[in-house]
């Protein structure tokens, strides 16, 4: 160990992209890297499971299909009847995992997937047009604020949440991030693309 400078330098999946930002544009892009991501599995019919999750996160467990709950730092998204994705802006996934494991009982699983996922935030006046070029989901009518869907973006699978009228967040798998980025870069040529670093 002594021979090596072990200064730890993490990289987001888009660490190697040389971003070329337009001065103004109809779509804004930001990679929200280094967020904590945990996959939580369990039985929402088990009151103990529900209350334990709520106690740890301070958020009620979204049991309704395709719903989510969030506060300033943490959000939790319904993925399937027994699966949720927890995203923490603070990158404190290890602590969250430990707290959940300490509190949960019975059959459950908590898996750290932080290294395997990143979050792309897309916003701007033309963001709906970009989404329609990239995704078959009915963004306009079927994706209100706070709803989370697992769908496709171009040919990559993503977990998509509407943040507000003109802002979406997509959870993208690390290995697909470059492809999704290149698709966005291509599809926004007609709108202009502003990169938020």
């Amino acid at each position, binding site marked *: 160990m002594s021979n090596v400078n072990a200064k*730890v330098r993490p990289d987001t999946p888009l660490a190697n992209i040389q971003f070329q930002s337009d001065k103004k544009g109809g779509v804004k892009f930001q990679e929200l890297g280094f967020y904590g991501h945990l996959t939580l599995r369990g039985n929402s019919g088990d009151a103990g499971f529900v209350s334990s999750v709520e106690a740890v996160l301070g958020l009620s467990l979204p049991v309704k299909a395709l719903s989510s709950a969030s506060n300033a730092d943490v959000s939790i998204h319904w993925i399937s009847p027994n699966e949720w994705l927890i995203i923490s802006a603070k990158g404190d996934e290890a602590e969250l995992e430990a707290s959940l494991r300490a509190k949960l009982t019975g*059959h459950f699983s908590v898996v750290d997937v932080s290294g395997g996922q990143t979050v792309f935030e897309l916003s701007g006046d033309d963001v709906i047009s970009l989404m329609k070029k990239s995704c078959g989901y009915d963004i306009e009518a079927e994706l209100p604020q706070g709803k989370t869907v697992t769908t496709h973006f171009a040919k990559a699978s993503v977990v998509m949440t509407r943040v507000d009228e003109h802002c979406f967040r997509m959870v993208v798998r690390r*290995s697909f991030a470059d492809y999704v980025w290149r698709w966005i870069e291509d599809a926004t040529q007609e709108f202009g693309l502003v990169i938020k670093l």
Partner: protein
Amino acid sequence: MSQNKRLDSGGRIDRKKVINFSFDGKSYKGFDGDTLASALLANGVDIIARSFKYSRPRGITGHGSEEPNGVIQLGTGASTIPNVRATQQELYAGLVANPVAGWPSVNFDLMATLGKAGAMMPPGFYYKTFMYPQKLWMTYEHFIRKAAGLGKAPTAPDPDTYDKVNHHCDVMIVGAGPAGLSAALAAAKTGARVIIADEQNEMGGSLLSTTQMINGAPASAWLKDTIEALEDYSNVNVLPRSTVMGYYDHNFLAVIERRTDHLGEISPRGARQRMHRVRAKQVILAPGAQERPLIFANNDIPGVMLASSISVYLNRYAVAPGNALVVSTANDSGYQAAIDWHKAGRKVIGIADSRAQSSGELVEEAKKLGLKIWFSHAVIEAKGSRRVYAATVAPINAEGTQVTGASQNYDCDIIATSGGWSPVVHLSCHTGSRPVWNDDIIGFLPGKTVQKQHCVGSLMGQHQLSDSLEQGLVIGAQAACEAGFGDGSNSIKVPSVDLVKTGQAQALFLVPHSKSVSRAPKQFVDMQNDVTAAGIELATREGFESIEHVKRYTALGFGTDQGKLGNINGMAVAAQSLNKTIAETGTTIFRPSYTPTTFGAIAGRDTDSLFDPIRYTAMQSWHEANGALFEDVGQWKRPWYFPKPGETMQQTLDRECLATRNSVGILDASTLGKIDIQGKDAREFLNRVYTNAWSKLAVGKCRYGLMLKEDGMIMDDGVTSCIADDHFILTTTTGGAANVLEWLELWHQTEWPELDVYMTSVTDHWSTMTISGPNSRKVLAKVCDDIDLDKDSFKFMDWRSGTVAGVKSRVFRISFTGELSYEINVQANHGLHVWEAIMEAGKEFDITPYGTETMHVLRAEKGFIIVGQDTDGSVTPQDMDMSWCIGKNKEFSFIGKRSFTRPDTARTDRKQFVGLKPKDANVILPEGAQAVRDPNESIPMTMVGHVTSSYYSAVLGHSFALAVIKDGHNRKGESVYFPLADGRTIEAEITDYVFYDAKGEKQHV
């Protein structure tokens, strides 16, 4: 000769904007607002094509997507598009167009000069003439196609881009004529999301050329107001220049928008064409109706046109494509052409009306204008070759089956024809609905459908403008209501339009001639494919009674126009010939695409590097910077090998292999599938999905597992490690990751839901790097000080948690090379950092990065299989000599076990996994080469197996291979032979499949 057929005034063209263009190598001028067809007609260009079979000169017949003759090659070089209808192509500055048919040119045609090859081409010509010898078919076809000409595909990459947009709407309206526009207005008012698409550059359909008034003003005023109103609605999407090419199940429609084809050959702004993928709650079809020509002798001579097209060219484009007109009609609407022609100051020679009389308004108007009308007459023949010079008019009987008296020729240069109106049922057919013949409208109507679909306007045989406008409003409100908007009643005032009183039309298709059909000059039914009435009669005489068979035998409707003009007439001729009604013979149906569609529009942006996702590991930038060449493994890019300057591939592999065997190598193994399994029943679940036993695997231990399908054949393999008593991490092959997870979920959810187990993919979470070779422990020791690396405390098939290069890691002591080996897993955001730290630490040992190819060689030297390479879905664990991996004492069964006792699985002469050593140490057997026992056996030889993996081994100093050979386990030491396609026969000795370190000592050091 500049635009000598252009009228002095009128039309929806801008005379101030002169546009230069060229056709067939000659330069012309037109105006903004012209189509290529209207501009060519304005310039007096008669011949724009040569026919497919008979090479006859052909001119413009129609004015829209139905056009069978005016099909051109637009542009040149990489951006050229074949099979564009001149009637739909808007003129732009510098447009270059050429005929698709006619070689070497339309005016000097080789086939015509050689004596009309068509004389030798009766229906069924291909079948009769060129069936044998079959191998020459390609040669015949090549010649025929070149001479006939069906357009040329560009050979260079397309400089333009194309893209796609997804839409969801409540009401999708196809066609923006009076009915479609009204429907859009009514639907829009309810707040429903509306899309209205029309293939023309301007919306309006028949309103663009009608002379009827709406609300007491020219129709163009209502049209303008309506389009503006629609564009003002935020819930309405107006798509001009957009062809609905296909209507598919669940109200999914594909709409091709030509965004820039009217601006130039190469797009000046973004995508040239855009495919709108529309998913609609309700669909309103308002595509209108298509005028049907009457069939008579020589009806293909340039100058014979649809009556409605005459009006369109006069009123919309201010073009009079001739001087002296004869009309042949079976209904009132044919009179409109004569009235418009007369009002344009051109000469109407006369109107031949097949009916005995009519008191319709248009007929009365024609009479008032003093136009000559011949009732109970028809044009039975056109005279001319490169242009009509006369029409032969004869009296016919009331049934329209016989000429009843002497004919007379009238000099003219243009003949307008109207046999009635065929509803455009194409789209309604796309979803499988069969159209239904209706005697009242003399046409097919849309049949029953399972789609949420409404039909309105001329499509339903309503040809009154007032009906279309009113019904459009009604249907628009109704469709919106069914989509959940409004109460279904229309609240928009119906525009006032005078009803046009019309006389009864006659069902006339083929006009009789004084000679029989087979003796008369050719009467063309389908002009694009040169199908004649005589040809259809011949087909029925030869026994083809099904209309689908007649179609295929004669090629009726097979052209790029899908027989839009010819099909109904063809059905009528066939029916008449078979003494049946059209209702009895029925019709063929139409399939997508409505008009020819470019491949670019279908592909969209899913091309080149965006064609398929390319997946990268966290170390990709390092691999690229260090000269890696890449191999595609599934969607992943994996380093293949890392050549140094001047090295051949084999030299690189030799270097990488020897470095690993003698010191230390490093592999990026991040792409291996990784599945996290948690739950109290995780062990039992593993027991059931793997062949071997997992009950006793202790925490901190790893085990190789073999996964089978139900048929007992190997499906996947990998190492699974015990993280905690109820927590395991399972690895899969790179290509199998998604399938394996799906497979495990399937079994869990459908067969064993009682097992408490949750599975989560963590493939992307972990970056995995394998250091392998006798010095790997020393390298690891330099970057890890919290794991006891002593060989007796951290043993082969153990894993430990610790810190590597400052990063929390899981280190697995497993080996795919047979060497001392550590697989280091770190959270992927730290992957590159740790990789670089290991490379730095390994410098003193000359640590060597290697890729998939060296990995393959190293594992093959050890006889380790790769599922999917050495197995192919037809090999069992026993075939692979892996019975050691099958648990004998498991309480529950495991997937595939039952199949072991099937007679075919249990037989002993199956292909079995062995090694091969070529007699010539430098010859590398081709993978896939088939083995025979006797090289001198005559063909077909008895094949006894094949090579699955084959390499040169630097450490062994000779080539070697892995193979599956029948009864191979018992035949070690024998020779097998590989006769190759290049004439060589390679001899190899069957050996054990482990070539290196047979005792397996090196991985335990």
